């Protein structure tokens, strides 16, 4: 059953368009992440869903009802803010009770829900504290508990983990997933962190430059991205131009590869660094591939390999015997390489924009 249905939402600021018609849906109990670089419009979309910003066009349905004309307090949506937005003049318990009081929930029920939320967010014993007396992680959990007690139709998350340090972020990410499994709340989660999106989501909505680029499960988007932007934003990849005929393509240096779909003419494939096989050999068949650089990452080694004019990233697991720079290597490519969809020039510009954004986003590496 569809809980949230966003249809052709647009947002214009004066003459410039921040959101091109965006459509997506979230099923009941599903955890959907909107992933994209800074300025891709994901926060604008979230604010429109929440009701603190007004869309220029399109409609939003929640549990079958149109909500896009309602003020935020009547939408039955609870939000976890990036800044937590806890009320600094209220104790933890008062923070949790605030929404229930506003919704005029009866006292006994208030008590029950607060106790439950405190329990599942492991906040027991902190009820009398003021927000400023809590650590960042505790504040985050209070913000979450405050949203959960409302038992809303939809939970919104606006990069809730981005203000925490890396270790705590990892812990809370797991807690959040476990919690979602337990209460089964329909959730829409916004982040620019691809690792976060992959680890938590049932489905990911990749956005860039005010458009939805691609929607799919983390596995689909990683293994078989349809768009170059997706391939590059989720993890690392090599984007290679090929000349295809049928299920066979030819790499720029003439090496043949096996394609997942029948294609003809020039096209583009995405090859993950870890899917390329690499081994040192004295006499390469075909084009000579040379190791240009290597960095040891612990669990794996990352090579940059030059083949003709092309530079490839190749990752090798284990890596107990590093291949030294300068050595000639043989590369093997996986079968059924995903062919990226060809798009118009406009989209390619967007993609360039996305790539520039990606350079500014350190988490992607």
């Amino acid at each position, binding site marked *: 059953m569809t809980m949230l249905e966003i249809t052709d939402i647009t947002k214009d600021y004066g003459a410039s368009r921040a959101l091109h018609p965006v459509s997506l849906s979230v099923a009941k109990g599903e955890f959907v992440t909107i992933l994209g670089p800074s300025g891709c419009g994901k926060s604008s979309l979230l604010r429109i869903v929440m*009701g603190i910003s007004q869309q220029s066009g399109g409609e939003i349905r929640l549990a079958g009802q149109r909500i896009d004309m309602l003020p*935020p*307090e*009547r939408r039955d949506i609870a*939000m976890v803010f990036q800044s937590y*937005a806890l*009320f600094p003049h209220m104790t933890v318990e008062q923070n949790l009770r605030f929404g229930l009081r506003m919704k005029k929930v009866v006292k006994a029920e208030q008590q029950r829900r607060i106790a439950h939320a405190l329990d599942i967010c492991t906040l027991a014993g902190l009820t009398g504290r*003021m927000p400023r007396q809590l650590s960042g992680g505790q504040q985050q959990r209070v913000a979450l508990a*405050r949203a959960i007690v409302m038992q809303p139709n939809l939970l919104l998350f606006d990069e809730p983990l981005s203000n925490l340090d890396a270790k705590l972020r990892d812990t809370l990410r797991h807690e959040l997933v476990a919690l979602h499994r337990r209460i089964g709340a329909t959730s829409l989660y916004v982040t620019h962190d691809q690792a976060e999106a992959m680890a938590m989501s049932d489905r990911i909505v990749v956005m860039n430059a005010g458009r939805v680029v691609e929607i799919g499960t983390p596995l689909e988007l990683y293994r078989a991205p349809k768009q170059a932007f997706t391939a590059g934003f989720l993890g690392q990849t090599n984007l290679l131009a090929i000349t295809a005929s049928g299920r066979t393509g030819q790499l720029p240096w003439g090496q043949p590869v096996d394609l997942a779909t029948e294609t003809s003419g020039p096209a583009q494939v995405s090859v993950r660094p870890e899917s390329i096989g690499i081994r040192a050999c004295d006499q390469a068949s075909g084009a000579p591939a040379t190791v240009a650089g290597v960095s040891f990452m612990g669990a794996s080694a990352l090579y940059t390999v030059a083949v003709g004019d092309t530079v490839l990233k190749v990752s090798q697991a284990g890596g107990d015997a590093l291949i030294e720079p300068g050595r000639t290597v043989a590369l093997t490519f996986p079968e059924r390489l995903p062919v990226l969809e060809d798009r118009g020039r406009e989209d390619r510009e967007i993609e360039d924009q996305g790539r520039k954004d990606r350079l500014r986003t350190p988490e992607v590496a």
Partner: protein
Amino acid sequence: MPARLRDRRLLLPLLLAPGVGYLLLFFGGPLASALIGSLRAEDGSFTLAWYAHIVTRPSMLRGLGTSIYYGVAPVVVSLLVSVPLSLAIRRHFVGRKLFSGLYKLPLAVPGIIVGLMIIVLFERGGFIDRAVAPLGFALPKLVRDDWGVGVILASVWKQIPFMTLIITSAFAAIPEDIRFAGRTLGASRLATFFLVEVPLAMPGITAAVLLTFIGSMGSYAIPDIVGPPTARPLSVLMVNEFNQGRFPQVFAMGMVLSAFAVAVLVAYYALTSRIGDAHGRGDAT
């Protein structure tokens, strides 16, 4: 490291000396001498007679009452104007920048001129009286009237910018997300304002209220110019006595006025620290 520490220990008093020293010399000293003066009879012996005068003479008692009235009444009116004004200024409107510069102009206008303005506008036969006369209205006595309406108007005019400035900043310091959080938790715009924004802006609002209260309670020029001759606040009575050379009496009145201002502040500190304690108690549970 020890050398630097010693440096610091020496540096601090050296840095504090000019400001604190000046105030000790030209503020603390005279105040102390006034305090001593207020406790001395003509022959130099200790006496509380000057204070007794204040409590026993009806004119003095009324002066104290009037001082408090001139402190409280304008602040109440100013607050009723300043809060809505702060909220309006927070919104985006055409010419907002210009407005937030212009509304502060009264900060630069001396109390005496404000008194003159009130006379020009509200005196019987003044501008408003003349303007409404053709409509068949007559302005009631608003300047030097028994209720001190003129004084209140003048004080309010002078207080509003200061209060609005402080209150606007207090509201501006509340993060936007906190407001949105209130809304998404089911509170209407109005409920969010009263349950979330006002409590958070309260320290700024109380500071503005106390400072303006104390300021207008002790002001001399405005009540002297537009206040009624029948009820004079302590500050005006003081200057009269001063001009007649009755210094000990003047000092005693000054001490009472100051004590009242300080008492208000101490009460405020006591009250806020108790609220702080309440937060503290919350820690244990």
